[in-house]
């Protein structure tokens, strides 16, 4: 069968067709391999150490589910969640930080997004300046802003709230500007034709079209910010993160698992709540298109 002439011709054609693709694929793989070797050297990857210590990882995961008395956490939940009241207050603080940060950031984004949209703002300089400013706000990580704000505002949730607000403003500003650039321009022309000024144009022609989308994006950002606020405490910017990092550093194993479970649960609850709200906003809003 292998020596059949027709079969051989087919095989040859297949070889020819795949030869170039295979070569490209091979050189791509070689390049990635080379780069990853370089990266492994840079990142001090030490497989031997990994192999020797991987047991520590599993034993760590195991240990966080045991109390100091040696009992499994599940057998004594009241001892496991001994600090529940304190932790719930801290979780509340974390949620408040996310809420205030998201709200302030959203207001900032609403303020700036119109001057970043080509269809409602004429001045190219203004558009360029607003866009670069927002880009700066979203590229610098939240935690870096938090570190700087801790210096200026002192330790505590205020620094965290402002860091979230700045970052949210940059991230949402970009999305909002995209929404504004995709609106139907007919109402805008209509309002302008009646002699409306810039503010009236935005309020009566643009806002009604974009508001439900803005709210939906803001809710999505709130979800992200709850996760973000949970770790801002690592640099002293308030919330539950501070307790978590000290529990990890001081090897309070059972506390680590209790705090992680509380944080994950909170995130899951917030996620499902906001998802419901968002579906309502997008699904039944009078201005919705999608």
């Amino acid at each position, binding site marked *: 069968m292998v020596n059949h002439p027709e079969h051989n011709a087919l095989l040859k054609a297949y070889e020819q067709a795949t030869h170039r693709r295979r070569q490209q694929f091979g050189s791509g793989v070689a390049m990635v391999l080379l780069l990853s070797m370089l990266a492994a050297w840079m990142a001090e990857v030490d497989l031997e150490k990994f192999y020797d210590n991987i047991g520590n990882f599993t034993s760590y995961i195991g240990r966080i589910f045991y109390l100091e008395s040696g009992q499994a956490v599940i057998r004594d939940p009241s001892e496991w969640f001994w600090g529940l009241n304190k932790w719930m207050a801290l979780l*509340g603080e974390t949620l408040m930080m996310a809420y205030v940060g998201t709200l302030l950031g959203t207001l900032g984004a609403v303020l700036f997004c119109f001057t970043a949209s080509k269809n409602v703002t004429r001045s190219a300089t203004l558009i360029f300046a607003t866009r670069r400013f927002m880009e700066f706000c979203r590229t610098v990580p939240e935690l870096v802003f938090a570190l700087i704000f801790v210096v200026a505002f002192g330790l505590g949730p205020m620094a965290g709230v402002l860091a979230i607000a700045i970052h949210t403003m940059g991230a949402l500003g970009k999305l909002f500007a995209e929404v504004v650039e995709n609106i139907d321009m007919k109402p805008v022309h209509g309002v302008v034709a009646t002699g409306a000024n810039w503010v009236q144009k935005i309020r009566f022609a643009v806002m009604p079209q974009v508001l439900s989308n803005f709210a939906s994006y803001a809710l999505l950002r709130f979800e992200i910010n709850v996760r973000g606020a949970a*770790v801002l405490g690592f640099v002293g910017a308030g919330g539950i993160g501070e307790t978590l990092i000290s529990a990890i550093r001081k090897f309070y194993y059972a506390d680590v698992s209790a705090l992680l479970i509380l944080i994950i649960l909170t995130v*899951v609850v917030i996620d499902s709540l906001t998802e419901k709200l968002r579906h309502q906003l997008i699904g039944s809003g009078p201005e919705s298109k999608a």
Partner: protein
Amino acid sequence: MTTDAQITKYPQHFRTVTRHRVITITVLVTMLALLILSFYRLDFSLARIFSGFSKLFDVTRLMFPPDPGWGPTLLRYLHAMGETVAIAFLGTLVSAILAFPLASLAARNTRINLVMHFLARRTFDTLRGVDTLIWALIWINVVGLGPFAGVLAIICSDLGSFGKLFSEAIEAADRKPVEGITSTGGSRIQQIRFGIVPQVLPVFLSQVLYYFESNTRSATIIGIVGAGGIGLILSEQIRTLEFQQVSFVILMILVTVSAIDWLCSKLRFQVIGQPQH
């Protein structure tokens, strides 16, 4: 037609109190009340805001001009930045490679059995639920301080995201090529290799490239908890109030992130074709 006649004909358009308005006002008032309560609970005060902003102004002024430190300091910065990129690159690559087989366990059309499917999904959810910074702290306990812990942290949290995204991509794949391969007598492995992989590979690659960029951002901050990269230097400089160097490091991060962003979007367009604009 007079206005009175219009009002009697279309009363719904002339009502001042509508259900919609009541809802809007209630929502706004609740949000405002929550905001005020939060301000109170989070210790916001006008005095603190004013003194904070004036201090922030001073800090910002101290940042100019950015100071690279030259000589060995600059080399140290560049090395740390390289480390950051290396952490992001390696973390993204390894987690993508690991996620590939795991995602096929989690996808509905390629799974082996229900138990594995369920286990894989819950594993992804848990991995994703724990923040990269927390993973970094856990891995530091295992392999010690340094960039290696950062790589492992990124692998862990990305494995969750990639697993979810990849399995969704596999589920969205067209069944017809698979049926074609089955009809020629292809085995299960051949069905996946020739029926599904060619469809999902471009999608995977584009997601991996997107994550490489976002991981570069994450890798800049994991140094703050001691897991290598530029974050360690940045937090050190901020805590010792060396603001001219801080601004230089931030600039360096901005330039690197936008360079990688540019590179990734270029590669992505090559993989999935030009954008549809």
